[in-house]
């Protein structure tokens, strides 16, 4: 078996072209890994038959944890015995995905000893993904990971591994320390991460500015997005330099502003900061001339999800601005209220955003003790947060 070359004419098609190919990588691993070799065989079979051959779920995990391992089995183990078990491990990534090369070597060595050697750096929630191992290898892998300073991430109905953009480590636009907040949240909620007790998954993502490089507004149940409260910092000399270098400020900046809050008279750029919605477009176009303001913090939004059971939802604003120094305490207080309500009224496999849609935002805000504020209105005349009593309407008439 070890020397047999598996014929994979359909998979070979996926090696063609200039882009990276997962097939090429699996073939490379298959030179030393029997699991990778059988994986190629099963995948080719799936392409031939146009049907998946994995069974997923069940009871697999490490002692004490309910998350971090996704059970996966082949439904054709007699043909591909080396992938009869092919469990996935999710390993909690470092905040901002910063590694030393030594740490990466350690991770790969552990996985070559105990699994297929195949990894996915990184999964959509952000974890380091170890692809393919047997049930008997789970505890030894976990033991070596913890000795190396790593822990498993979340899976199932728990708080998923929190993730953060690179934040102030490499980005001048970070409005708060995303790495620190992500680490603090991870350490605070170890039980929620490892011991599933929610109606369904709950994701938290920390983005340092509205560019939202971790896509929190589309993916995270709780999106923590850096923002500033005061005016955009403006350097007029740098603006002039952009113009001298050929930038058409009127066309490329002013007319692309979603709220038309900027004016350009040919010499001076004027920003009406009251109308700015912090979209970051002008700052992205002229990073040397414009910068986020100095009064920085984050906006907390709730309820995003990708389409799985129901359609996709974007996060809704819950708290428009929290100063950086109050961020962790505010997040903890908000989570305790949101989770209490979700625990009580959430249906099985219902994300918190779906719960809000079902009960209505007004009722949800009332239940968690938040007052509606204008920043929650995503479209004028669209959000029914303001209710007029009949007697008020009559007195106005």
């Amino acid at each position, binding site marked *: 078996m070890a020397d047999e070359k598996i014929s994979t004419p359909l998979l070979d098609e996926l090696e063609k072209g200039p882009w990276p190919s997962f097939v090429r990588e699996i073939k490379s691993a298959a030179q030393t890994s029997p699991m990778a070799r059988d994986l190629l065989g099963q995948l080719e079979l799936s392409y031939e038959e146009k049907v998946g051959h994995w069974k997923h*779920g*069940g*009871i697999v995990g490490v002692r004490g944890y309910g998350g971090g391992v996704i059970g996966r089995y082949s439904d054709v183990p007699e043909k591909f015995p080396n992938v009869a078990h092919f469990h996935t491990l999710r390993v909690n990534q470092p905040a901002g995905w910063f590694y030393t090369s030594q740490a990466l070597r350690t991770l790969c060595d552990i996985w070559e000893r105990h699994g297929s050697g195949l990894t996915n750096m990184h999964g959509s929630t952000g974890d380091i993904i170890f692809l393919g191992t047997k049930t008997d290898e789970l505890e030894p892998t976990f033991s070596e990971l913890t000795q190396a300073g790593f822990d498993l991430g979340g899976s*199932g109905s728990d708080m998923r591994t929190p993730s953060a953009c690179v934040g102030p480590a490499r980005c001048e636009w970070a409005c708060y320390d995303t790495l620190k907040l992500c680490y603090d949240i991870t350490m605070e909620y170890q039980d929620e991460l490892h*011991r599933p007790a929610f109606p369904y998954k709950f994701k938290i993502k920390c983005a340092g500015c509205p560019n939202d490089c971790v896509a929190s507004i589309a993916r995270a149940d709780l999106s923590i997005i850096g923002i500033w409260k005061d005016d955009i910092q403006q350097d007029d000399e740098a603006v002039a330099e952009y113009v001298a270098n050929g930038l058409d400020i009127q066309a490329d900046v002013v007319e692309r502003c979603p709220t038309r809050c900027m004016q350009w008279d040919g010499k001076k750029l004027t920003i009406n900061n009251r109308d700015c919605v912090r979209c970051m477009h002008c700052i992205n176009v002229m990073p040397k001339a414009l910068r986020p303001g100095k009064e920085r913090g984050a906006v907390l939004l709730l309820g995003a999800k990708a389409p799985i059971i129901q359609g996709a939802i974007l996060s809704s604003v819950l708290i428009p601005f929290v100063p950086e120094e109050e961020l962790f305490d505010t997040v903890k207080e908000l989570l305790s209220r949101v989770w209490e309500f979700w625990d009580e009224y959430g249906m099985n496999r219902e994300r918190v955003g779906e719960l809000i849609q079902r009960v209505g935002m007004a009722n949800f805000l009332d239940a968690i003790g938040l007052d509606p504020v204008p920043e929650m209105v995503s479209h004028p005349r669209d959000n029914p947060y303001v209710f007029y009593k009949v007697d008020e309407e009559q007195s106005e008439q």
Partner: protein
Amino acid sequence: MAIPIEQLAEEMYQMVVEYHGKKNLKASDLTKAMIAKYGEDQVSKEDCKQAIRQLIDSGRCVYSYLGGSYITLPKKDSAAPE
């Protein structure tokens, strides 16, 4: 007087045994059942969390995943090949 954690863990375990093969129980199902039985003045959510921790850490129960996460008996995985 508060119900001891050990007692809660035992009663939860009996629930898991009783429902095994009939209904999948989530952590919140066990918690709500204990609070319904004894009242919030005698059993808190934190007590139930500790009881579940005891059940899982002792190996008497394990987590399973069947579209969502459940607490069940540590039987051989039905999805595993024979």
